[in-house]
């Protein structure tokens, strides 16, 4: 954490074992939140670093929410919605997909690793996918290291 300049291509890993990532997960009410519930009901264990925020549709996730979360020190943001063609609101998830693709580019331009932002389709029946996603995403964030906003690089 010698450099204060945000670098997208961080070579350095998190220092020490004590890096506890802060991960914000936006879940749509109909699929992904229910998928997270199912993971819980199935007692699927996962790292305790994520905090779920429920929204009605993944398309409710204003790009501002993601940028603000990063600004306030989130090390990673996951947006989870219904699978394509399965959106409770017809096609909200397609809007989400476009926004996240653009946001990733934007994050990179700001000097952040775009992998700090991830989009996943998780259905109400995919508790296992929710768990796997959380395990993998936490690992990714641990590898990228703390956000530049929290003193990482």
């Amino acid at each position, binding site marked *: 954490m010698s450099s204060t300049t945000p670098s997208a291509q961080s070579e350095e890993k998190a220092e020490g074992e004590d890096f506890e990532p*802060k991960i*914000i997960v936006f879940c749509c*009410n109909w699929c992904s*939140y*229910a998928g*997270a*519930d199912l*993971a*819980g*009901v199935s*007692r*699927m*264990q*996962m790292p*305790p670093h994520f*905090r*779920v*925020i*429920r*929204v*009605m*549709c993944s*398309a*409710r*996730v*204003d*790009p*501002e*929410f993601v940028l*603000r*979360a990063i600004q*306030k*020190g*989130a090390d990673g943001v996951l947006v989870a919605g219904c699978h394509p063609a399965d959106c*409770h*609101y*017809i*096609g*909200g998830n397609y*809007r989400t997909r476009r*926004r996240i693709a653009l946001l990733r580019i934007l994050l990179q331009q700001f000097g952040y690793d775009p992998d700090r932002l991830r989009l996943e389709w998780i259905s109400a029946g995919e508790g296992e996918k929710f*768990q796997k996603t959380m395990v993998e995403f936490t690992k990714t964030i641990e590898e990228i290291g703390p956000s530049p906003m929290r003193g990482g690089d």
Partner: protein
Amino acid sequence: MPENTSTEKEKPRIGVFICHCGSNIGGFVDVKAVTEYASTLPDVAYAADNLYTCAEDGLNNIKDSIKEHNLDRVIVSSCTPRTHAPLFQRTCEAAGVNKYMFTFVNIREHCSWVHMKEKEKATQKAKDLVRMGVARARFLEPQEETKVDVTPTALVVGGGVSGMTAALSLANMGFPVHLVEKDEELGGFVKNLHGLMMTTKSANETIKPLIDKVNAHKNITQHLNSHVASVEGFIGNYDISIGGDGAEAKEVKVGTIIVATGAVPLVPEGLFGYKEHPNVITSTEFEELCNKKELPKLKSVAFIQCVGARGQKVSYCSRVCCNVAIKSAINIAENRDNMLGVTEEKAAETGEVVEEPAAEKKAEEEGSDRRRRRRGRGRGDEDEAGEEAAPSSGVEVTVFNRDVMSYGVEHELEFNKAREKRVKFVRYLPDNLPKVSVKDGKLEVGYFHETLKMERTMPVDLVILSTPLVAQPDAATLSQLLKVPLGQDGFFQEAHVKLRPVDFATDGVYVCGTCRGPADISEAVSQAAAAASRASIPLANGFVQAEALTSIVDETKCTGCGTCVETCPYSALRKNEEGITEVIVAACKGCGCCGATCPEGAITMTHYTDQQLLAEAKAALEEV
């Protein structure tokens, strides 16, 4: 971010109830510590833990505390809102707190159950989640669910079997129905057909009782030679203008709309010699020739299946054509109602046998052994019936197919019956289509025999092309008028392929019959009855409950760019006369897509405001 909005008004008084859920939460999270922490959070007036918050004493605790501590918002921190939110919201309402002033914090599914081996971290996470809930709760606002009155009248577009069935169902329930048909008479696609599957009655005989009932019903107003010219409004309150040929447009008010505009057969331009040879016709034209008794003299007939379907001109399987071909093949083989126009006299001269039960019985005996063996063979394989056991009509019938889709109980029996009648089913592969040509003035079909692996030709008198049903050419116009979607194949697209097959995503509009995809009559009737039943719910209730979660447009911020209008999946946003967006509350579903789209921040999503969600995210990231 304006954080002092809540303090400008009366200071919030939040009650936090944290549930042990027996040991489900209590066993893995230090609930007492979380409760203690909750009581230190801003605007929290009361915090308590319960063994089971959803049990009667837990619910009473909420009610009593609301009164005792003058709480104006309630947080329950326990399981998932997906199962328990309604229960706690009712409890709040019973104690005089608006149900939208309630917040759920999930510390079981999303915490205790998934971090069972890390009590300390799970407890910290539970504290974070409660803090997030409190941050959100501070910005909650009470919401009212408004009721919108419904005009108890329906509009059915399309006077075919589906439309008539739907109209009759609704009329029998006592609702006035406007039935719009573009043709000069009722009956739709079916009225042009000759024979139908699974019945010996003609098409017209079959649907006549339906037409008679519609004609006689006092609740049904027919608009023939007419079309829907314009649609204004939303569920419960549609203003429809019905245009007619040269006639003045009629204005009607309806509460719900059923789309039953049917489909048309694909015209196979440029395929299999269609229009090049007079005796290459579509299966629909075959029906018309049968009706007019104008079939050419037949000795050999070839059906070609999947013409233009399944990846050629359209991507889908049209569902009905295999069964239609089987039906027609059996009719030809049996010379049903003397459809081939062979007189007894002529038949005697030419040695043909016309509907001769005795001869058929003989053939039955001769062929039975062989048939038993043959039935075990795969469908679509060539069935070399042998010349000695020709169909009773003496006409050789061959069905060139990719594979026979005679699904279900009855159709499979019909398929077996066709084979018993010596109808040949010859398989072709899509990269090696049969070829229709004329040699020495005689029509013939050339094909590649998949078993023998060799080219063969067959002289035929008539080639019947089974073409798929395709969407009505004017489906797009109606879809735009009603603001309901078409799928990629141009058929109307239902709200959910499995769970809402006759609803549109737009409330108040329903769909049935072949305008949502190929279907046979029994399927269309089922769909029509279903659509009528769905459409009657708002009519019978007399009102619809509008969502309390809707978008609100700040007219002073809106620039009228129209991005939200385009983005809304429900057409719930429109521009008013001043070019500013307004929300049709009855149509809004509250997804929030527009709120995330508005570049001016002019749209607020009630109950999921930017302020609430950002507060939640910020609280999650606070360093404690």
